[in-house]
């Protein structure tokens, strides 16, 4: 039954997301590199065009993992687990990107690569939780138990996502608050910079969708091989 729905190749949507994302990536980089310098930070502010989309997609990916982990626990269909796995993996990559670009950005602006302030601490915890997610998956052999245990981490670990996102608002931190504030809808950014940021966000989202679909397919093929 399941076998019929899993094809050997990525479907049209996967190709479209990936193709479009990779095609627009250079354009996004061009926009980022041609965006005007910031009045305070000069050209350093351009790291934002990687840092912000990376962090957003990381949060989004972990949310998708949370949702599909819940779905898996209640429906017991391995397909949900594969999406959760794929999303967590891609999310970890994006979150890693956000952490690395953040550190590169912090050194010249704040003066340090790392400091234990609320946003950075909560993000580090978040990162550790999802690294744990994969350590766990690697350690359990029984596929059903592996999926259940992973789903539990995907659900319990998600609590750190809103905490991390809101930490700059709730607690006085060194990290600046959101420039595009989802809770109030305020935007603290010049239009030409906002354009470049939103365009990169779109590119990252396309790449995320494409990679998650591709990764879930690979996971499905692996599972089929394991069961065959």
């Amino acid at each position: 039954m399941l076998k019929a729905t899993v094809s050997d190749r990525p479907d049209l949507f996967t190709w479209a997301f990936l193709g479009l994302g990779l095609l627009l990536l250079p354009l996004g980089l061009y926009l980022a590199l041609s965006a005007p310098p910031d009045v305070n930070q000069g050209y350093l502010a351009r790291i934002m065009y990687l840092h912000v989309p990376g962090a957003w997609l990381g949060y989004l990916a972990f949310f998708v993992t949370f949702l599909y982990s819940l779905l898996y626990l209640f429906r017991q269909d391995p397909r949900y687990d594969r999406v959760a796995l794929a999303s967590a993996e891609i999310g970890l990559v994006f979150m890693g990107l956000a952490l690395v670009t953040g550190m590169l950005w912090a050194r010249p602006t704040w003066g340090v690569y790392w400091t234990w302030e609320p946003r950075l601490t909560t993000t580090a915890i978040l990162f550790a939780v999802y690294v744990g997610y994969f350590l766990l998956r690697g350690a359990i052999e029984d596929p059903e138990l592996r999926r259940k245990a992973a789903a539990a981490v995907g659900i319990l670990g998600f609590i750190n996502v809103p905490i991390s996102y809101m930490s700059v608002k709730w607690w006085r931190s060194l990290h600046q608050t959101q420039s595009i504030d989802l809770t109030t809808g305020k935007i603290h950014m010049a239009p030409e910079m906002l354009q470049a940021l939103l365009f990169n966000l779109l590119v990252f989202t396309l790449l995320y969708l494409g990679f998650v679909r591709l990764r879930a397919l690979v996971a499905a093929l692996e599972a089929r091989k394991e069961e065959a």
Partner: protein
Amino acid sequence: MRRALLLALRDLRLEVRDRAGLLSVLAFFGVMLFIMALALGPEEAPLRRAAPGVLWVALAFASTLLSTRAFALEVEDGTLDDLLLVPGGKEWVYFGKLLFQMLLLLPLSALAFLMAAGLFYLPLEKALPILLTLALGTLGYASVATFYAGLLARLRGREVLLPLLLFSLVVPVVLSAVRATAGLVEGLPLSEVASWWQLLAVFDVVYLTASALLFPVVMEG
């Protein structure tokens, strides 16, 4: 919930009769505190500064060991199925096992505090607030630990996996608990420590509720 209490008391009885498990937890715990005191001493200031961290590392490890114990005899004797076949929801099994651990962890915390007071110069007059911190912290830790210990109960190598899984999830609990303890040792006013307690209570409630809801889902089948 009477069933949960009964289960906790029965498990206590089993552990007391089995002895080996409890003794290993206690021995581990004592040796760890002694070694750390020896390594960090003999000056008073560094010992006192390190005390909250050491205390919590020891408690975290002891709690992890205990959560494994909570299901170990059940698995060795093959009786876990009997518990799961009791009609109705399975939450009471979770609460019973958690209660069992808390009944051991609370005296253990008190003991740990007394040992730390002797070895690390912790202020004895702060006993009550420190014990409250220990209780809140161990509750948060044990709620997640119980959930995972149950999930992994039938798995080989669970002793290795459990800490791996647990530590990343309970970092916020341990962090707040260490900060609260450190605040008390430093002599901060209670009003300032209280907000760490509130934070601990929030984590306790969230983890306890989520674990209790997820436990039956992962245990069946």
